[in-house]
């Protein structure tokens, strides 16, 4: 998956808490990768976007996949194109020069970039532990070899590295030893108020209070497998805003419409509907 490196969707809408800001600054100063964990929807990925935006550095995103090999993240030797060129010879590339067929992967791009970049390695837990350890070796030494052309790529600028993980399970010890670690907790009501504030600057105070209060009440329901996160709250408020029949009073009385936006699993939705009916 490729993302436009210059688009920071909602980057300026990121609410950074004090603790996290310190951790980020220390990690940059110590030149260490920062490992972020936390519930889905706590803005782990958004943080990298926000850093890139505020430091005015380009952002490079490496979305880790389970089948990924480390070399895919470093570079790719485009054999098929070379084969094609050698067969038909209708391109301007020099077939005998292998270097013309080496394409940089995301880590490679971060290394050869003229500017210092923010390198986001998203969902590292998807890959196996060999990938994780090998990758940290590369990031530690800030260089890797391209075997095909016998060339070593050394980072021109040490990128700011942010690694995210959804896993509740721990990563390997050598891996952890080389990272700083931060766990993003689910935002409390105060922070949530700010988050809602940046997303809906024109939202009336009463409505946002009522929504947030209702949201945290709904989150506390028992037997919910996937609790609604920030993203769900934002979408929910958006839905409530468009509904002309919505009244703040009915919301604070425990009457919550559009539960389907908050609860995405059918079992969760059933449980939530049942429990919210009981509240009324």
């Amino acid at each position, binding site marked *: 998956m490729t993302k436009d490196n210059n688009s920071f969707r909602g980057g300026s809408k990121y609410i*950074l808490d*004090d603790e996290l*800001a310190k951790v980020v600054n*220390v990690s940059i100063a110590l030149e*260490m990768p920062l490992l972020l964990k936390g519930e889905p929807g706590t803005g782990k990925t958004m943080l990298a976007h926000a850093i890139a935006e505020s430091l005015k550095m380009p952002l490079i995103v490496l979305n880790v996949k389970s089948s990924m090999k480390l070399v895919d993240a470093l570079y790719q030797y485009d054999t098929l194109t070379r084969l094609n060129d050698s067969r038909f010879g209708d391109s301007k590339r020099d077939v005998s020069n292998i270097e013309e067929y080496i394409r940089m992967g995301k880590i490679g791009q971060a290394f050869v970039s003229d500017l210092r970049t923010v390198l986001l390695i998203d969902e590292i*837990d998807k890959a196996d532990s060999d990938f994780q350890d090998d990758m940290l070796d590369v990031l530690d030494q800030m260089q890797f070899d391209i075997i095909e052309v016998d060339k070593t790529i050394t980072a021109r600028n040490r990128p700011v590295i942010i690694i995210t993980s959804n896993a509740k399970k721990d990563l390997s010890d050598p891996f952890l030893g080389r990272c700083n670690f931060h766990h993003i907790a689910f935002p409390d009501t105060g922070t949530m108020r700010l988050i809602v504030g940046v997303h809906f600057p024109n939202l009336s105070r009463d409505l946002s209070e009522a929504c947030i209060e209702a949201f945290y009440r709904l989150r506390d329901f028992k037997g919910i497998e996937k609790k609604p996160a920030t993203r769900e709250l934002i979408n929910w408020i958006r839905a409530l805003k468009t509904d002309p029949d919505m009244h703040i009073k009915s919301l604070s009385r425990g009457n919550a419409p559009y539960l389907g936006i908050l609860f995405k699993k059918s079992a969760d939705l059933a449980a939530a509907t049942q429990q919210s009916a009981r509240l009324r």
Partner: protein
Amino acid sequence: MFIEFFYALRERGLSVSPTSFLRLQKALSLGMIQSVDDFYTTARAILVKSERYFDMYDQVFAHFFRGVALKAPDEIELTEIVRALLEEWLKNPEQIAEALGLDASELKKMTPEELIQYFLDRLKDQTEAHHGGNRWIGTGGTSPVGRSGYHPGGMRVGGQSRNKSAVKVAMERRYKDYSQEGPLTEVQMGEALKRLRRMIPSGPKDIVNVDKTIYETMRNAGEIEIIFDRRLSDRLKIILMIDNGGWSMDPYVEVVQTLFHYARSQFKDLKIYYFHNTIYSRVWQDAERRYKPEPIDDFIRKDPETRLIIVGDASMAPYELMHTNGSIYIDEVELGTGIERLKFLAKTFRHSVWLNPQREDEWHHTFTVGMIWRVFPMFELTLDGLEKAVQHLRVRH
């Protein structure tokens, strides 16, 4: 600095490595830390690598930084940390070099004595430069680094400030839920079980096999011949047998349910059966153990590569396991003992484990646990045990 704190953490069982401690020193020397709040956050990010230990860290921090007067690290403590440092140095010279801000080649030239001296000097530097002798943490804003802007840019603090001292925050124990004593959740189980997946090519041939393509093209005298392969996907078969009867399993209903839910949503080829206490001639596909029985003897026809996971406390009266007619249900006339059935299953499925929700140290108190233990590899139904079980199931025999 903070050597006592370092040891307090280690004493509580937090595996804080000397390297990371040195990194903390480096952060201190860079002037990144200007208040106890800063120290709380930074030290945690550098020293503690899992939210499961955050609670423990909070406790140590709160205990340690509440009304503690500064004491200069005395000789014995220094010797201790120096020893730890040297051990780490032997293992991993590059990391130490980096943490000390030295070149690896410079470090190699140093004798251990010189290294220690260098380290101690650095500690002294910091005490003087940043901590004004008698204070834990320097507060003077002389440093170029800090909240006001680490170049280039630094992170601007956009959120709210906590308005609470770090000690108070630590005392709130916000991370209690994440600590290791917390219950096994579905997500954790998922992470453990995910490793069980076995990728096998299946489906349409839509992936280009580059190596084969090149080979075949060469064989074809340069005429391009593209070879396609099947995609890899998970084809693992799993049989899950759950002991769902009897009061002895009652305390574990929740954790078994979690396992059940996760397994059902994750594995494509999963069969779930139920039994009570031990397996006799049949198991049931319905939880009431009434409508859909399946004879154990039929299991021999199933794929022997299937992974068999049995969940139960393995606790019962010994005769249930040993007697030829041991079933506690009158209508189940049995041929062969319970334990023989289990042996049969263990032989049919080479990859099998028994997950026991009881704690391992309790296993010895029950006779039948030992019996079954000898037939099936038995693991605790905890995060740790689950991981070991998965490891066992992955091994190719």
